[in-house]
């Protein structure tokens, strides 16, 4: 018997697959959930529209983090944001990690699952960093196939974020925004537009961040990230340990004009201030959007 003749045809196009591929819903203005704020959030129900959680922080056997998350998701919409998918790695995918991610998603029922367009290691090692890729056709074909595999495994379209990069490869054949656009079009993944990361990468590589913004298809963007960074003079490092700077607020306003109403959140990972201080930034995201977008009409 010719086994090969019994094998399925090459992967179906994204529209033919049985999975959740609809555009994620608009959630409003959110915040990254951090352990320092657990008690205040559970005790005070602050007026935040939704929370983003770092998936790996809850991919644990049990204990307090998962119990807190269960209580938060009873009150707020939650999305899962990972740092270890390593979607652009040329090493085989870590299926144990994917199984853990799927288990967590079953428990949390997130509105969507996101990670980054990057790789974190090869040869069984993990560098725990969001590493850059060359924007080549070879890399694009590879990442498209990996996104399709992960989406099939999870049974849903994923959301991928542009990372801050500090260097560029000399073999790139297209821009980062062209790569992201093609990736989204071919794989069906949605895009998380990190406004700060665009600003950081544009400064580091010497292009206008608005060119990046104009190069991304408006209908594929489902989330904005806003964060702070550290300026080193000749380059900027994406540290997520400062308030959002004026230039990034300006770029956020430009992003709203281009992409429209997009779920937005403040992402602080280090030097984490009080919830009140972060609420000021969340409110600023809301106010800037309100100045640009027409109010939402409520029927009835």
């Amino acid at each position, binding site marked *: 018997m010719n086994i090969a003749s019994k094998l399925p045809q090459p992967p179906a196009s994204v529209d033919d697959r049985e999975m959740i591929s609809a555009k994620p819903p608009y959630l409003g203005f959110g915040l990254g959930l951090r352990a320092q704020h657990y008690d205040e959030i559970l005790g005070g129900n602050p007026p935040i529209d939704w929370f983003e959680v770092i998936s*790996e*922080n809850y*991919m*644990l*056997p*049990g*204990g*307090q*983090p*998962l*119990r807190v998350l269960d209580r938060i998701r009873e009150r707020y919409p939650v999305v899962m944001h990972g740092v*270890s998918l*390593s979607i652009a*790695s*040329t090493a085989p995918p*870590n299926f144990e*990690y994917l199984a853990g991610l799927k288990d967590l998603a079953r428990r949390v029922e997130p509105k969507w699952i996101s990670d980054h367009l990057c*790789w*974190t*290691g*090869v*040869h*069984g*090692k*993990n*560098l*725990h*960093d969001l*590493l850059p*890729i*060359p924007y*080549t056709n*070879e*890399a694009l074909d*590879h990442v498209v196939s990996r996104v399709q595999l992960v989406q099939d495994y999870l049974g849903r379209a994923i959301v991928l974020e542009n990372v801050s990069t*500090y*260097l*560029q*490869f*000399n*073999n790139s054949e297209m821009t980062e925004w062209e790569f992201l656009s093609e990736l989204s079009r071919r794989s069906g993944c949605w895009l998380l537009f990190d406004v700060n990361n665009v600003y950081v990468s544009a400064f*580091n*590589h*010497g292009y206008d961040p608005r060119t990046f913004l104009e190069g991304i298809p408006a209908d594929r963007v489902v989330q904005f990230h806003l964060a702070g960074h550290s300026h080193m*003079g*000749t*380059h900027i*490092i994406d540290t997520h340990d400062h308030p959002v700077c004026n230039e990034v607020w300006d770029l956020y306003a430009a992003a709203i004009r281009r992409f429209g109403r997009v779920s937005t959140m403040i992402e602080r990972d280090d030097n984490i201030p009080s919830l009140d201080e972060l609420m000021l930034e969340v409110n600023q995201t809301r106010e800037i959007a309100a100045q640009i977008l027409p109010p939402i009409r409520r029927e009835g």
Partner: protein
Amino acid sequence: MSDFARQQSDFQRGILSGDDKVLAEILDSPKEKREVLFGVYKYAYGSRLVEALRNDHKLLHSYVGDEMFDEIGQAYVAANPSQNPNLRWFSQGLPDFLKTASYGEYPILSDLAALEKALNDAFDAKDAPVVELADMAGFAPEAWNDLRFEAHPSSCRLDLSTNVAAVWLSLKEDEMPPDAVSLEQPARLLIWRQDVTPMFRELSAEEAMMWDEASGGIPFGVLCSMLATYDDPDGAAARGAGYLHGWITAGLLTGVSAEF
């Protein structure tokens, strides 16, 4: 190997071993040399992993100070490249690492790391229902000899060779720790999570034996016979019941049954 795969190998080797072959494929930026830009990734690798160790071992960090902790951290990172996608598990090998090489002559370091690791592991160990005292009332007196117990998944036993418990408590209270000393008999520690709080306490040799055997499935009647070899045989059953009472009120048991 594809160009893309080869390039990732070279990039990773540059970060892990300092082999800068990949620089030939990296561009200078308008304002900075490629060596500096690649250096951002090289520096971030070591500093991020040492920071993860510092987060997991705050008291070891307090005990040895910034300089020595960074030295230990860098040595551990060099010897143990991370293989797990979740940074949570990177520090798991630190207690064993501290038994080796130049750190081995200071066993308090390994013991302190082992205690912190056990408490960290208890914090996010699997959840399970706990046995209540009322559950024990359901067993007829004649069934007690056959009772077997299941330890809570967060529980862990450590036999450590130093006065680590006293050192840990002082550091936790932000006080000057006592001098580290090696003990004639090991400190028998039981670590677990009560509700959401990691705990530990020191056990007598007798209670440690009973806990270890009970966790291994030995029934209560046999446990009492074993206790009788440690101290007053007539009081063995009462001592066994007393230990059991303490374990139940501390939330250390997740199952009890009279089935073989």
